[in-house]
């Protein structure tokens, strides 16, 4: 089972980024603002047996690097980034905003599953119509923004044990039994929500190891990959109030 999984994963190791856009979505013109939600990040190590072990220090570090990379990217384009974390909202809005963030966590995972990982839904084959519903307006009220950008990153790095297993697999080539053991994997997506309607209007995934997101260079590369096709122009990613 381990070996079959390995072959399957090897075939996917090329860089894939593919974006989806809501039908009828037109990149906004004029003055508008995008609020950037606190990035959802989990970084860990891949054990020899293939289990994902989250590391809180790596996660914290990577989240910081992603934020820095995002700010640098927008600064270079003449814009600025302000993050919004619902947990810090005032008590009256907090619960609704946290629920919205959780809803996106589920919706984003569904898009990933049904648009990228092959489990396509018959009713959503040729269209992209995912929405958080009209409650998303609460986020507009809390931040004054027109759009919200959600970022999701999961990355795993081979543990010492996994590396030893990989070495053993390659050593097998000496007796003509080459066993390729897959290493850590990166999955990251960006999702843009139109707060007036709650619709996810743009979505982009990168599932390649473009760089180590715990480092400034790696995080910069990943953010660049994700937002390359971001549909709105310069000076766009600015928070409201």
């Amino acid at each position, binding site marked *: 089972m*381990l070996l079959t999984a390995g072959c399957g994963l090897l075939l996917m190791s090329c860089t894939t980024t593919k974006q989806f856009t809501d039908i009828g979505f037109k990149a906004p013109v004029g003055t508008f603002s995008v609020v950037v939600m606190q990035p959802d990040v989990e970084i860990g190590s891949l054990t*020899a047996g293939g289990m994902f*072990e989250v590391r809180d220090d790596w996660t914290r570090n990577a989240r910081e690097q992603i934020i820095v990379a995002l700010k640098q990217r927008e600064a270079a384009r003449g814009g600025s980034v302000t993050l919004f974390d619902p947990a810090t909202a005032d008590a009256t809005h907090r619960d609704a905003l946290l*629920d919205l963030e959780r809803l996106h966590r589920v919706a984003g995972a569904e898009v990933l599953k049904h648009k990228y990982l092959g489990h396509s839904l018959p009713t959503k084959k040729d269209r992209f119509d995912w929405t958080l519903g009209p409650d998303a307006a609460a986020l507009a009220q809390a931040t004054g923004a027109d759009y919200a950008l959600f970022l999701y990153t999961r990355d795993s790095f081979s543990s010492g*044990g996994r590396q030893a297993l990989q070495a053993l697999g390659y050593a*097998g080539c000496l007796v*003509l039994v080459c066993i390729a053991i897959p290493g850590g994997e990166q999955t990251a997506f960006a999702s843009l929500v139109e707060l007036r309607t709650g619709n996810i209007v743009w979505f982009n995934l990168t599932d390649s190891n473009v760089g180590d997101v715990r480092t400034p260079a790696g995080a910069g590369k990943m953010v660049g990959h994700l937002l390359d096709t971001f549909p709105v122009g310069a000076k766009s990613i600015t928070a409201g109030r």
Partner: protein
Amino acid sequence: MTLSRRAVLAGLGCSCIACGAGARGVQPIHTDPTALAPLLAPGFRPSDGDERGLWQQLDRAEGDIADSPIRVRDPALERYVGNLVGDMVGDNRRDLRCYIVRIPLMNASMAPNGMMTLYSGALLRMRDEAELAAVLGHESGHYLRRHSIASWRQRRDATSMMAFISVGLAIAGGAIGGGTSGSVASLNNSLALSTFRYQRDQEAEADAYGLKLAEAAGYQPHAASRFWRSMIAERDASARLRGKRREQPSLLFSSHPSDEARMTAMQDAADRIARPGRGYRDGATAYADALAPHRMAFLDDEIKRNDPGTSLHIINSLATPTWTGALRYREGEVYRLRGDPGDEPLALAAYTQAVTLSDAPPEANRACGYALLKAGSGAEGKAQLQAYLARRPDADDRGMIAFTLNQ
């Protein structure tokens, strides 16, 4: 949604009291409860990388549960349960947080970060504080003995070992030209079984620890085995009504000891731990009072599961020694919803008794009314429907009832 969340929590190393069925015939280790001490100090925070990562994930899961619509938001009930945990764990009281969730199944779970989850179905089935203390003590035992992280590490090491065995023997097979798949399978099977065995031992230890905590807090130590006996009777009743035998789980592939083995082990341990002459309390009245605002709602959730054997067992147990109108009404509901041949007279008999008792809800009059109409007793049926409208003047279905009355 609920199922997937439970699966997620299980994946994150939460220990639960009754996940799936236990192994039949596997004897739990007879741990001496008095020999067990906490493995962490009050105010414990993890320092190891893997444990910190686990806590980080669980902290987020805790936020989700705390804000979840299925959380029972009753500060009085939460305080009652929280105080009971606090009384048992003493200095560690600040490290444990208990959430009551509205899921009509018998279960409770403990996450490594101190988040305890207690299902409404567990509260529904308990008869007193001593039984609640046994379950809360069991979960506290998982936390104080650091079971989640130990179990996670055991699984991580076993799966790593399995990976090395698979790859190593595949290469060895290539080198010597012989098949090794037989040895791979047998070595890996024994490693996989060691994981189940490890979890069963943890459950047995948590049972023993729970007993120790409950006894020290002054609760009748035999409450735990009494509760498990009642769970066995419930499962038998459920299977009997479905015309089946109770599920007999696998000897080896179970994460929990069997109900019978647990009951016996806890009874033996209680015999040994109980101190003669010490007056133990069961806290039945305090428990009934704390649960009173919710019990019937929890029972209604249970009835909707469409497991009439279980529902009737619970109702009969709650009705011992005294039947109430509220319970008779629910008994009638179980028969009405099952709708097997012969159930209509049973439902009618239960409703008829319910409406003679003072605490029957207005809905009992409505149910009795319709059952009587169906049985051909028109005048009596209409009288019950009128009684319903009189007792519930703002009923949503007033129009529909009036229509029936005018027929």
